């Protein structure tokens, strides 16, 4: 095997300034980074390794669309050591980034199609990259009808509320919002995502592609509902989560069958998932 000595250090992160921190829920914040005049080379579905010096790295999906120039956005739930450290950062602090890594949503397969987006909780973050890509003025006419169904446990757990309003006001998409449990102020739909899906969305499943992301239990029951509605496994697209370190298919921990989720995923069709061990 030829040895390429010209290559750079694949593990070296680049530091970027945090322009803005948007609080989303009690434990989720969105961080907007300034790319200093450059544009991100990522495509929707990809992720990056975020590095906090002195603490470590964590793989986080890129929630901004490549059509948003000069910035990168990450929506992060405070969960482990690194995400807690990121939550402690302030505007103008610098955060290390390397990537983008992983495959992308199959944009060419989705072009010219009707798209049904289904997200639960923080699972909207990776889908948002694709949604804003599809809704971009220059791209919108490349896709047909768009339906977005978004649900969270409670109204307080909805993320991107500032952007959901914009989507709600658009007349070229159908937007449905639901919560598992409402509160006194909540006037909208109450119900679990898979139930709301079956009750409220009537489409010809053979003419639609569905892209879903959320907590594992939500994905499981949503796929079940989609199959009951008549969706075909290749038309159901989702993303997997695994513990990752390198992001390059080398460190071994995200290995499932012949795949490395960090490199061959994180985006898989349900048809692909049916053919790999359920070890995720």
């Amino acid at each position: 095997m030829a040895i390429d000595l010209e290559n750079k250090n694949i593990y070296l992160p680049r530091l970027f300034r945090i322009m803005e921190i948007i609080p989303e829920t009690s434990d989720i914040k969105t961080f907007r980074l300034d790319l200093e005049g450059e544009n991100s080379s990522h495509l929707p579905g990809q992720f990056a390794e975020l590095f906090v010096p002195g603490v470590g790295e964590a793989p986080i999906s890129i929630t901004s669309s490549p059509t948003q120039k000069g910035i990168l956005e990450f929506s992060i739930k405070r969960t482990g050591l690194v995400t807690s450290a990121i939550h402690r950062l302030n505007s103008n602090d610098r955060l290390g980034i390397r990537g983008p890594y992983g495959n992308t949503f199959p944009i060419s397969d989705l072009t010219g199609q009707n798209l049904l987006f289904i997200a639960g909780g923080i699972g909207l973050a990776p889908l948002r990259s694709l949604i804003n890509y599809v809704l971009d003025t220059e791209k919108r006419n490349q896709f047909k009808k768009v339906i977005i169904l978004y649900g969270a446990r409670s109204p307080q757990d909805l993320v991107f509320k500032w952007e959901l309003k914009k989507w709600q006001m658009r007349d070229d998409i159908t937007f449905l919002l639901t919560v598992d449990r409402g509160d006194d102020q909540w006037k909208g739909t109450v119900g679990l995502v898979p139930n709301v899906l079956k009750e409220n969305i009537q489409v010809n499943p053979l003419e639609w592609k569905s892209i879903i992301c959320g907590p594992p239990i939500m994905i499981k029951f949503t796929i079940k509902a989609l199959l009951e509605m008549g969706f075909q496994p290749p038309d159901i697209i989702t993303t997997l989560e695994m513990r990752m370190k390198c992001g390059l298919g080398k460190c071994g921990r995200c290995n499932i069958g012949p795949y490395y989720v960090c490199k061959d995923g994180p985006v898989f069709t349900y048809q692909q998932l049916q053919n790999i061990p359920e070890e995720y």
Partner: protein
Amino acid sequence: MNSGKVTKNDLIQWLRTHQKNFLVTEKVAHHQPELLCDQSKEIKNIKEALFLPWDKLFNYHWENQQWNVENIQPSASPRFLMALPCEARAIYEVLDRVFLQPSETESGYAARRQGLKMVIIGCINPEPTCFCHLVGGNPYWTHPDALFILPFHDEYYLETNQSEQFDIMKKGTTLNKSEKEEIEVLRKQMKEKTNQEKLPEEVPQGLYDLFEDQEWEDLSWKCLNCGACTYLCPTCQCFDMNAEGRLKGFQLKTWDSCMFPKFTLHASGHNPRPTFKERVRQRVLHKFSYFPLREEGRYGCVGCGKCIEICPVNWNIREAVERMVKKIGNRS
């Protein structure tokens, strides 16, 4: 291919001249103690030469109210590495494929690899724990870029495509016709024998289809999940990366093991491989199914038997694989 033979004295003299730059694996030291020199460095495991147990990837520090990161330029001086054919295959067939992948080449590995001159010692006394023949190797396996040395009568047979890298080749005398034939016959017989015993081609897919089999539970029963096998395995390439130092420090890459529960533990608390069964199955299938399915049939195991030798509870990967292979096609 250039070949020749040298006397034992000439070979020892050459090894002595370069001894300070020689890494010798424990296996070679054990098999061929006469090739060891005082100042050559003995390593437990061949991967130590390239895939370091501890490797600093970059530095960081806090200064002027902000973080800074600095690259560490990899450097490596040219060295010789003396190993048995099985161990050498771990580099050519497995580690190179992981760390030298185009566009994702690991610069540290590449720098060390570039300066490495491989010396492969033909294996003349395989041990009961060895099984290189099952996974596509054989005791005379070599690579054209390496210097192959085989004890031959009271002398040593040498062979390489890179004579300019190994000045010992100048001392070599040409083999006469009958000697050449003898080497060819030895090789041919060995190849025929080992090819017969090689695991059948359908094994990687067959094992994959047995993912849900009950036998994995039984196989994992004895294993302690101590990870010793993965640390001494020449092909195990899984690693961890951690920040060392709070305000000033470095990102450190270290060996890791799929035998440890934390290896796959999500921050949420969910673990896709929660028990011994999943982790033992992972170690076996990664080497005998997933890696070959990805890498054109090449096994992620070279059959050196090190893991069998050192296992504190005698867990035997060869037995495990053979037990599962018997089940291929027998599923109800």
